[in-house]
């Protein structure tokens, strides 16, 4: 078999027209260029890996190189051992493989982001030392105090009353927690809200205390936040966003600009998804504990409805940190 192409000598860039004769029986290649002819055994050259419709090259051990013309595949003519590369080349030309790859990518991403990442975060959160959570809690509190929190304006008696209630609603399974729950009062210009910090500190704003009309409503709020602490939600969301960041960087190591932005916004959507899942988990925890303590879960719905009236209608959209109010009320009903 004769194949035309071009030839460069070892260490020189000048090219010559050349052809090779392939002899599959004695496993030899004869290279002919102008007046010279050279014979090589199959073991004396390396054949470039197949890729798309790139022309194939023979890299001879003595440094010479032969490149076939475009559209002529040396792989079909030289019977050498097939390698992994040629299997991938086989895949890259099949439509069915492409359809499979698209489906596989979507399934794999779904599995990874919706199941694997939360599971990893949950597993890792159990290995984090409590001292770390304490440090993170103190740091978060001091930053929040600087940014948007100020001294509570509630009276001392009111604070004592609420603190007593808080202690009485702590569920049995959280009583011996290595990171004990505590409550602190703050005023915030952003209105009614409550936060849980990684060290078990729960911050409640004056507006939220005033919003609750009875003890059971306050208990519902506390139990929701305690649910966050029980599941170590803050730590888990810190870990899962780190895992997300690293995996996006790892997967897109070779893309720039707009693809990066696209992936980053995609991972932001997943972060919000985890956040909504955590809120639902905390709601379920609260309803179950309310029932254990013989308090009416309807109180939780009442306080949720009042909160929803204060804030702009947030529908159950992809872009919110909390599930929509209707969904949260439904969760309460279903857990009952």
């Amino acid at each position, binding site marked *: 078999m004769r194949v035309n192409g071009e030839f460069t000598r070892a260490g020189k860039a000048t090219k010559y027209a050349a052809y090779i004769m392939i002899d599959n029986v004695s496993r030899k290649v004869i290279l002919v260029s102008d007046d010279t002819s050279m014979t090589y055994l199959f073991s004396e050259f390396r054949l470039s890996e197949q890729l798309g419709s790139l022309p194939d090259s023979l890299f001879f051990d003595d440094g010479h190189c032969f490149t076939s013309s475009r559209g002529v595949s040396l792989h079909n003519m030289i019977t050498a051992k097939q390698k992994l590369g040629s299997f991938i080349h086989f895949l890259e030309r099949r439509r069915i493989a492409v359809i499979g790859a698209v489906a*596989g990518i979507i399934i794999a991403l779904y599995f990874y982001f919706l199941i694997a990442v939360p599971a990893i975060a949950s597993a890792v959160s159990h290995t984090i030392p409590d001292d770390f959570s304490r440090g993170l809690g103190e740091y978060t509190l001091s930053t929040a105090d600087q940014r948007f929190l100020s001294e509570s304006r509630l009276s001392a008696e009111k604070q004592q009353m609420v603190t007593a209630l808080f202690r009485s609603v702590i569920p049995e399974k959280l009583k011996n927690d290595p990171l004990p729950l505590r409550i602190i009062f703050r005023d915030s210009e952003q209105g009614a809200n409550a936060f849980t910090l990684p060290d078990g500190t729960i911050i409640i704003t004056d507006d939220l205390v005033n919003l609750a009309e009875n003890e059971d409503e306050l208990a519902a709020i506390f139990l929701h936040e305690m649910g966050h602490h029980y599941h170590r939600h803050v730590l888990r969301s810190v870990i899962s966003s780190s895992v997300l960041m690293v995996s996006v960087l790892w997967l897109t190591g070779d893309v720039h600009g707009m693809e990066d932005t696209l992936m980053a916004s995609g991972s932001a959507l997943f972060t919000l998804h985890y956040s909504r899942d955590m809120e639902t988990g905390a709601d379920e925890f609260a309803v179950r504990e309310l029932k254990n303590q013989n308090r009416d879960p309807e109180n939780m719905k009442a306080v949720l409805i009042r909160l929803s009236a204060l804030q702009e209608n947030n529908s159950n959209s992809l872009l919110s940190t909390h599930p929509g109010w209707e969904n949260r009320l439904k969760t309460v009903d279903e857990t009952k």
Partner: protein
Amino acid sequence: MDTEKPILSDIYIEKENIRQPVYNIRFHGRSGEYFKIWIVNLFLTIVTLGIYSAWATVRKRRYFYGNTEIDNSHFDYHARPVNLLLSRIIAAVFIGLYVIASLIHPILQITCLLILCLLAPYFILRSWRFNAVMTSFRNIRFNYHCHFGRGYRAILLLPLGLLAVLVVCVIAVGVGVSVVRLAYNDPYFASSAVTSGMIQLGLILVGTFFILSVQAKSVYELFFNHLAFGQKKFSVQLSYKKFIKIYSISVLIFLPFVYFGGMILSRLMTTVMLSNYYHADIIKSVFIVNMVSIYLIYLFGIMLSSAFIRVAVLKYVSANVALGDMLRFRSNITFPSYFLLIITNFLIVIFTVGFGVPLAQIRHVRYMAEHTRVIGDISLTTISAHGETKGVAVEDELVDAFDIGITL
């Protein structure tokens, strides 16, 4: 430059007109073919949790290099995926350390960032070298000679020094104005605070672009003046003046967008403030529409001015790069056609949720290839290989693994 040696440059032009052949760069990549390669790459990368990405990168680069032809000879890329994998692991360890540091303490995070900044020029030069040595044309490897002193000067010291000067200037303006106010003891001099603020803001804007243009010039020189094909060296002579001019024009292009965006923003802020004052409700959708339009205006402005910089710099640099005295280069890309390409690529990627990335990449490379000319004797009879790929020791391979993916 040219005026210094008029006789030589005359001869050169004559030579170029009469004897120098001109070659087009041809790109044979097809988006359908590449899409399949890309999607299989992506799938295997995800399934192997990223390990395959090293093999994927080699296949991708081989596809683009191998399909780029000058005078019927194509480029080739020879990196071994295992080396790339090593560099990915090193990079991942660095990122992991950084993430852990940022979780533990902000000071540790900043220290980590500083160390990375200090190491950056070293990594950049090594990755240039790695990719040059792994790239070949007619089986002759490119080469990049690392001069770390010059690298640190161009990438780190020069911009940081200028930044320090800028900061001192900005502070000096503030202090100067205050001193003047105190000296005159004039209570009606209140407007001077606003004036000094405006001067400082202007200084920061102009100064930043000045630093960027100076850095760009020195980085391009750093790259091309130490790049070689075989043993033959590339060379380039660039002028600060030209770079400053290019960057100034791009600032002028960007300014109207800043103005319009700022106008919408200030109107929106006034509305929000008034509605707060009168306890009126502001419709959320109005707010969102306004914010989105501000974002789009800035995005469009940034794309427009950065496309201008890229076109102007590419034309200027490629006209001044030479391979020995054998080859010169020309780029005839134009701002409108390049901007159209960027915008359509952007839309393709957005509306295909990312699956159009291979099409966008093929379009970009084809455009670049079709608009570049190589002038000179392509028979390359005087080119011979450098021996620096032979006998690579294990530790050299480790160091050569620094493929961080930084491109000009």
